[in-house]
């Protein structure tokens, strides 16, 4: 079908690229301590990108029953090309087929019963720990197939398998509500119910007592999860080639300069086996690679798709990602912060006399990310007192500026962790951030 579509499109356009995606997914959900639903989904669709008279056109359809549907798809791409942006890229002419392992037959072979068992195991572990827990659990497997081909002979084809297990508990006492969750995801069948449950239980136990802090500046330690939801957000935007192209990135003119603490190195890496952000090629057929964004505090590179790189006069980096019905745009694969040398999370806590540990925040993504300012409610955080966790802090906000905070990293852990399958980072300590709290 791809070839038929490319042939038809080529009769009207200089360049054509067709992307077919198909996936089947089997998610099982448990709500309020019992199995609630089993969903099965099949989805498929085709995107057509063309260059006609030098302009980009795009069409997408999930209705692919016959030749008429292909005609409609070509017609919608041609219509939009009339008004489209000027094309500033050359599609790859080489076919990229493999390189990274992201498919595990054992995931594809997971039966409904296996997923029910995985979810039930996690649920039972949580329930057995505390009868007051109200637990939700989700277990899912997805197998997707991508086929991409362009009229220059380039493209890719691959299959990806993903299994995930997420759990969350709600513990309500009076008007005091505690929600704790954890999520594990992988391309191979190595998701562990015990580890997910254990992680949740540990966080709940640390939050049993409530501690109070006062409004002032203090050391703030971010877990990998907390880091991803706060300090990383402005950086994700600043290293995006589109932001740079628009002149809105504070780092746009600082390539090659030292902007951050020398402890900091950040990579975009699409070549890690079994990581859900990995693939042989991006969504325009460019091979994925490991790109340094920050090395030893120096700004090294931004991320680009072909068109954005063309407009910016930069080298493409193989970061052309797209939802099937839109054009490629710069996207991260696996964002990786290289580990430091300051030991485990417990080691870092051990060195803090008074501070807070931030695990989940709420609202930190809503601020003005361009300027690097962030300000979020500490949804789950703990007071650190004399080198130990001293209970959960509530009604507390943490605020600061990413660029100021990362100039001077007080500690960077040696033990990185995956967060949500495509962010890999160690805990990070900022010596001095503003913490506000409701008094009394």
């Amino acid at each position: 079908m791809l070839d038929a579509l490319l042939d038809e499109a080529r009769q009207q356009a200089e360049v054509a690229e067709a992307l077919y995606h198909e996936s089947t997914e089997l998610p099982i959900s448990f709500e309020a301590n019992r199995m609630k639903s089993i969903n099965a989904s099949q989805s498929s669709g085709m995107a057509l990108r063309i260059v006609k008279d030098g302009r980009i056109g795009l069409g997408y359809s999930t209705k692919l029953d016959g030749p008429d549907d292909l005609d409609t798809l070509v017609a919608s791409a041609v219509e939009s090309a009339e008004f489209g942006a000027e094309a500033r890229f050359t599609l790859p002419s080489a076919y990229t087929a493999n390189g990274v392992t992201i498919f595990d037959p054992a995931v594809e072979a997971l039966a409904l019963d296996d997923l029910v068992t995985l979810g039930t195991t996690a649920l039972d572990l949580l329930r057995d720990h505390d009868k007051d827990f109200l637990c939700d659990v989700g277990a899912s497997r997805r197998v997707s197939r991508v086929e991409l081909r362009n009229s220059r002979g380039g493209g890719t084809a691959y299959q990806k398998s993903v299994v995930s297990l997420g759990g969350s508990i709600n513990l309500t006492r009076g008007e005091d509500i505690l929600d704790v969750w954890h999520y594990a995801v992988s391309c191979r069948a190595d998701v562990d119910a015990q580890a997910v449950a254990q992680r949740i239980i540990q966080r709940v136990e640390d939050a049993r007592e409530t501690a109070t802090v006062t409004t002032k500046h203090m050391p703030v330690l971010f877990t990998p999860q907390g880091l991803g939801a706060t300090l990383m957000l402005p950086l994700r935007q600043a290293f995006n080639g589109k932001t740079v192209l628009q002149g809105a990135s504070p780092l746009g003119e600082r390539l090659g300069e030292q902007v951050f603490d020398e402890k900091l190195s950040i990579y975009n890496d699409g070549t890690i086996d079994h990581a859900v952000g990995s693939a042989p090629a991006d969504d325009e057929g460019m091979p994925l690679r490991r790109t340094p964004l920050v090395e030893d505090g120096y700004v090294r590179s931004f991320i680009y798709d072909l068109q954005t790189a063309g407009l910016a006069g930069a080298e493409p980096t193989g970061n052309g990602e797209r939802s099937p019905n839109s054009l490629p745009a710069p996207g991260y694969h696996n964002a990786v912060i290289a580990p430091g040398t300051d030991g485990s999370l417990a080691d870092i806590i051990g060195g803090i006399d008074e501070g807070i540990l931030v695990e989940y925040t709420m609202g930190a993504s809503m601020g003005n990310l361009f300027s690097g300012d962030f300000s979020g409610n500490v949804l789950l955080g703990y007071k650190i007192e004399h080198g130990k966790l001293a209970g959960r802090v509530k009604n507390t906000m943490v605020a600061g500026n990413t660029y100021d905070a990362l100039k001077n990293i007080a500690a960077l852990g040696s033990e990185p962790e995956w967060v949500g399958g495509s962010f890999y980072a160690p805990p990070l300590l900022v010596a001095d951030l503003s913490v506000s709290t409701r008094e009394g």
Partner: protein
Amino acid sequence: MRERIEEALKRHNADYVEIRVEETKSTNITYRGKDLEEVGTTTQLGGCVRAAVNGGWGFVSFNRVEDLGEKVAQAASQARIVGAEKTELADVAPVHDVVHVTMRRDPGAVPLAEKKRLMDSYVEEIWRTPKIQTSTVRYGDSYRKQYFGNSTGAYIEQERGRVTAHFGVVARDNGNVQQARAGFASNEDYGVVEGKHAEVREAAEKAVAMLDATPPKGGEFMVILDSTLAGVFAHEAFGHLSEADHVYENDKLREIMVLGRKFGGEFLNIADSGKVPGLTGSFAYDDEGVPTGKQYLIREGELVGRLHSRETAGKMGETPTGNARAQSYRVPPLVRMRNTAIEPGETPLEDMLAEVKDGVYCKNWYGGQTSMEMFTFSCMEAYAIRDGKLAEPLRGVNLSGNVFTTLENIVAVGNDFAWDPAGGTCGKGGQSAPVGDGSPHVLISKCLVGGQ
């Protein structure tokens, strides 16, 4: 389609089955900076079957709309594995209806070239303002036709339209970067996105004006929210708590959210409606075939109702409210808000200002979030208030607090009212839904402001 759906519903061994098939066509135009970035059209055809057996649910979604009978059997067998109790769905009289979308001006009939010309003119408007660093302009329209049938004999064909234009502007002065937004949305009229040049220019000027703003000092302050921000507050802080799917299986939250409980002053009224003309959260029937209406949540400060699907209503012995909404055929419906508003009170804005010695006037928003007990939202524009008068502009103001105490801390509700013209998009359970938020100005005696 009607025959295929009704045929497929004839044979099943489930307590309840529903089928949805949807056709959608949408157009998007996106600009980044001065340049057009993307023009595209999307055509979708897809469907789903949802079945309940012994209280468990099975759901199957697909793009290949064929063999509906087999999909019914598959959904029912999945539901049977799950079900261990009793299916309790509130009764709804089965409806037979065909709902045509009645567009005042149909975006589908406006040529793409004209839409693009209009957006070009907004881009020019933004770039007339000095110190603009970049901008985004997003136009979108969509038409959706849904075929719905269920095993109680309901059959509904429903069309829905939507048109939106959203503008984001980033201003920059050296390292200082500020942003502002404007937006317009309607479910019935392309006209709402036309002739908005003054509003678009105002957003650009606001982004530039915020360059001179200072970060707030953190701590607790008396705050006044404008209608847009107070509408978000109603949505985030109270609307989500009123969604019965959070409550019906959580005994402790059920105790907190007991009907008749006092949550605020007598001047506080909050309602959710699917019937406000023109708003993108309005529609005739929800995705379970239940007619929509207006549901009071708080009346004179007292909790009087909540938002339901047929299941949550059945389990709580309450009446379905038409709040079961699915983003598309790919997902089962969730309990969602439609258009949520604090209703007007009696206090003029100037009287509120006069109450404030040292506080913050907060306008418009970037976003909001809630964890049931706690809420947070960020202001697009804010000013210090000193001795009853507006003072210097503040940037990066985030508000946060406990829902219950903040509702108690509302000390006055304004005599004005506005719906957010931009419309809203609410995220829940991985699904997004168009919603409306509205309110008058609101005075809160104590609210936590995050600052540096």
